[in-house]
């Protein structure tokens, strides 16, 4: 291959190093009005009245809107349509949007927000998992179907649990807690809307132009063809810009009312309230192993602190339970999950979505089992590794799997087995799994998840795709793929992306799906285009029959330069345009809820973290990280390394310091100074290894890299702390206080898992044959299931 597998600078590197890239807040259309949003000062309150009359009289104020102007509810998941752009009945967290102003200047808009009188009836807030599981003092946060302040309850049993427990020679139970944290993108969310001639255009720093498009259509009651959503150059997401947000809908409404462009850029404090970050999760895990340390049964329970609204929460809850089986072979598995509403900023998807918490619990739990039965933790995990090309007890299909090789690479490089045992120094090991895109769209449908169009003419190659580059380099992946197939350089490919008017749909940058899905769509479109070019060249070269002898690459197609080939093809066929699309096959099993967890391929990671722990201060210093990631195939190894290093960095922040904490109903530290995140001074060296397993379904064999490498770091770090001091910290983050407390009692962590009114009967699922790898129509026919699930 000519360009696949080779490092190339990103196609947008130039604009980014010169300051020329236009991010959402850099856009300044003539006559733009500035929007400010009035937010609730109370964590839980009923709104009795809203009086905007004084605000409207302030000179420079052009429009004031409240929830009465935008009453239709929305939400990212069809099952959680529980948000309003502006709330007029009830507020559910400090920062919940209540009213908005468009004015000629930002300061006038802010003063007008202050002039809005809102009368609240303050209600008792619910601020923790345990409080949410008790009868509410005043009233429930939402009128959900489940009792108390429970948002959603899940209960599944896969395989024969009784037989699993009966076979176990050793059973262990543990309780873990993973604190919530936030994405903290460098760029605050920003959106500008313009309404001209009955058509609305929104520029936004979003990860998902298509889902914003849908939410706008719903709430504004406009047909989708009259709305255009454009993703501006993106200043960082990590999952935090994956929901449609109030400010996006509000500026659209204000632009419609005023006839002028309206911009809203959140302050850093507001970004903390927009949140949708990591759920705090309390977990209970019970596992049985046989005499050889092989898992016979596992029961995993999770309770998620969801915050004030649904967001992706139902999916997050499933994700705390579904992927355990994709790393380890678990013949009988019970999962109970519970998401609670609390009066905090809503939680949602952050890098690793719902899986870092159970990964942390599972890895430490297995370490403890290993210690108890006198087995090396690496060996115990190895004995249970899932096999490549197999099907799990909960029907997930595993294809390529580099767990063994990843493990070997980090063990060798770190010298884990030969490490010197010195008090205060330690190493920890952990593995993990992540999805290369969700197998199911957020709203069920049979359409492709990603579509790519290519235009070739005498001017060159242009690729059109709805995918949103959030800095991870998805534009580069598109350019790389098309360049490989058409024989040009990636830098010669022009890109038009993330614009709902001009590009075909891609579902967005979430779920580690873009390289896999947009990549596959690009391969298909590019191969069709290549065929046209080769055919035109063959005619000129008078080659007949087998056209494979016509070589494509290094700027040439057969005897011609690519430019000449483009002209030959345009002359022969007329306008040259091809399209490709990708839809993952049906994988999920024949049961309700099987849509969360399936992915066309899973990535695997292994890590060793070395730490120094100061016994007097409790300060944990990471000294070195070794990480191996099964990427399938690295389309651009430089970008993959960037994803791996960025994941390790973000994981270390979570492991050691980042916390979304509340006090008296308020966020404890909604600022970048007090919400601690690692700086240049805290980053240890990282040695990363890319393991290539050539996945049969990935584009050129590629799998995801953006999220998976984050996952093994937290448990490996805690295991390293145990290795150093012999104490367990069964919580994330590992703060100095927790280390010191653990030194007193041997362990720091939650004492018990709360009482949850689980359904009496779980959904019982018969496991598939472990070697049944059928997917798609064949699978659907065999099990009587339909494509949209």
């Amino acid at each position, binding site marked *: 291959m000519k360009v696949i597998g080779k490092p190339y600078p990103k196609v947008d590197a130039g604009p980014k190093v010169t300051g020329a890239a236009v991010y959402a807040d850099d856009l300044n259309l003539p006559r733009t009005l500035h929007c400010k949003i009035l937010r609730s000062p109370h964590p839980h309150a009923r709104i009795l009245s809203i009086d905007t009359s004084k605000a409207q009289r302030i000179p420079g104020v052009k429009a004031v809107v409240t929830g009465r102007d935008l009453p239709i509810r929305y939400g990212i998941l069809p099952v959680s349509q529980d948000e309003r752009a502006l709330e007029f009945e009830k507020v559910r967290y400090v920062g919940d949007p209540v009213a908005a102003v468009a004015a000629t200047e930002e300061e006038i808009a802010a003063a007008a927000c202050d002039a809005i009188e809102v009368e609240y009836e303050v209600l008792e807030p619910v601020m923790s998992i345990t409080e949410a599981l008790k009868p509410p003092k005043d009233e429930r946060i939402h009128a959900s179907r489940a009792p108390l302040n429970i948002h959603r309850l899940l209960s599944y049993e896969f395989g024969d649990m009784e037989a699993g427990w009966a076979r176990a020679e050793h059973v262990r139970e543990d309780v873990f807690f993973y604190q919530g944290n936030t994405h903290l993108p*460098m760029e605050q969310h920003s959106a500008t809307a313009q309404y001209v001639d009955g058509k609305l255009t929104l520029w936004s720093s979003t990860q998902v132009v298509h889902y914003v498009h849908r939410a706008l259509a719903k709430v504004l009651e406009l047909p989708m063809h009259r709305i255009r959503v454009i993703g501006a150059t993106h*200043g960082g997401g990590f999952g935090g810009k994956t929901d449609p947000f109030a400010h996006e809908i509000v500026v659209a409404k204000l632009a419609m009312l005023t006839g002028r462009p309206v911009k809203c850029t959140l302050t850093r404090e507001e970004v903390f309230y927009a949140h949708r970050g990591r759920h705090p999760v309390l977990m209970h895990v019970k596992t049985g192993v046989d005499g050889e340390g092989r898992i016979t049964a596992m029961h995993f329970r999770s309770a998620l602190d969801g915050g004030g609204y649904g967001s992706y929460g139902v999916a997050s809850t499933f994700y705390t339970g579904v992927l355990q089986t994709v790393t380890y072979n678990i013949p009988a598995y019970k999962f109970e999950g519970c998401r609670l509403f609390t009066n905090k900023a809503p939680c949602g998807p952050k890098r690793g979505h719902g899986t870092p918490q159970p990964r942390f619990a599972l890895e430490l739990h297995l370490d403890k089992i290993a210690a108890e039965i006198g087995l090396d933790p690496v060996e115990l995990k190895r004995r249970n590794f899932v096999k490549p090309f197999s099907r799990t007890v909960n029907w997930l299909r595993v294809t390529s799997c580099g767990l063994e090789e990843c493990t070997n690479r980090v063990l060798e490089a770190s010298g884990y087995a030969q490490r010197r045992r010195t008090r205060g120094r330690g190493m920890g090991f952990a593995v993990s799994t992540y999805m290369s895109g969700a197998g199911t769209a957020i709203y069920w449908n049979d359409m492709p998840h990603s579509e790519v169009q290519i235009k070739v003419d005498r001017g060159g190659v242009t690729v059109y795709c709805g995918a949103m580059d959030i800095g991870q380099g998805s534009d580069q992946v598109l350019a790389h793929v098309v360049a490989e197939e058409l024989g040009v350089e990636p830098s010669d490919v022009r890109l038009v992306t993330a614009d709902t008017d001009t590009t075909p749909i891609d579902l967005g940058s979430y779920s580690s799906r873009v390289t896999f899905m947009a990549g596959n769509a690009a391969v298909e479109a590019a191969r069709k285009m290549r065929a046209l070019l080769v055919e035109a060249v063959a005619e000129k070269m008078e080659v007949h029959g087998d056209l494979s002898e016509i070589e494509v690459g290094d700027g040439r197609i057969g005897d011609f330069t690519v430019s000449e080939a483009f002209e030959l093809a345009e002359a022969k066929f007329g306008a040259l345009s091809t399209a490709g699309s990708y839809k993952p096959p049906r994988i999920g099993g024949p049961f309700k809820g099987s849509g969360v967890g399936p992915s066309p391929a899973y990535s695997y990671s292994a890590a060793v973290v070395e730490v120094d722990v100061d016994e007097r201060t409790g300060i944990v210093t990471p000294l070195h990280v070794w990480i191996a990631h099964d990427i399938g195939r690295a389309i651009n190894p430089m970008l993959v390394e960037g994803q791996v290093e960025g994941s390790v960095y973000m994981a270390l922040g979570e492991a050691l310091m980042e916390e979304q904490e509340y006090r008296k109903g308020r966020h404890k530290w909604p600022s970048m100074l007090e919400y601690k995140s690692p700086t240049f001074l805290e980053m240890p060296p990282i040695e990363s290894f890319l393991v290539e397993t050539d996945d049969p379904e990935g584009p050129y064999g590629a799998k995801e890299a953006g999220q998976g490498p984050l996952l093994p770091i937290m448990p490996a770090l805690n295991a390293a702390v145990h290795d150093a001091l012999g104490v367990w910290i069964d919580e994330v983050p590992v703060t100095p206080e927790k280390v010191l407390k653990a030194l007193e009692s041997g362990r720091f962590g939650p004492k018990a898992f709360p009482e949850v009114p689980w359904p009496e009967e779980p959904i019982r699922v018969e496991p598939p044959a472990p070697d049944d790898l059928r997917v798609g129509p064949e699978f659907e026919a065999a099990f009587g299931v339909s494509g949209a699930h």
Partner: protein
Amino acid sequence: MNALDRRSRAVYAQTQFDMLNELDRQVDRRVVTLDVNGEPHQVLVPVHRTLLEVLREDLALTGTKHGCELGECGTCTVLVDGEPALSCLLLPVQVEGAAITTVEGIAAGSELTPLQKAFAELGAAQCGYCTPGMLLSAQALLERQPDPSEAEIREALAGNLCRCTGYLKIIEAVRLTAHRRQAR
């Protein structure tokens, strides 16, 4: 608890409204002359408007970014007489007469500087939002110390946060630039 006790009201509204009118009358506006990227600019601005706002909104130099506007993240870093400074904490009147450099002013024409090239080549810019500030902090370091150690690079850039890269490729880019300069 009776219903009345449980009600709270936005009592500040009227006061705020009056304050705004008052503010508008009193706001001191000044003509300020700024030397930005070697070009003189005269702007009429309220004195409380930050240098960051003036650069982005009055001079349309949107290459300078904002991440917190409280001096916490380093994203708005510019050079004032060659030294890195947070433009969100500076008022234009404080920097009259000083040479201000923004990311738009570091390259000569359309040719990238060695530091910009190294950032692009090594993937030191992912989302790129912190990049302008990083480049300016790093450029100031290299002016002061042409061959910085890794520790010196980390120290000099510690005030600039990045959430994408894990910092390592940025360190590499600064070192590569230094090595290339030494090699010349």
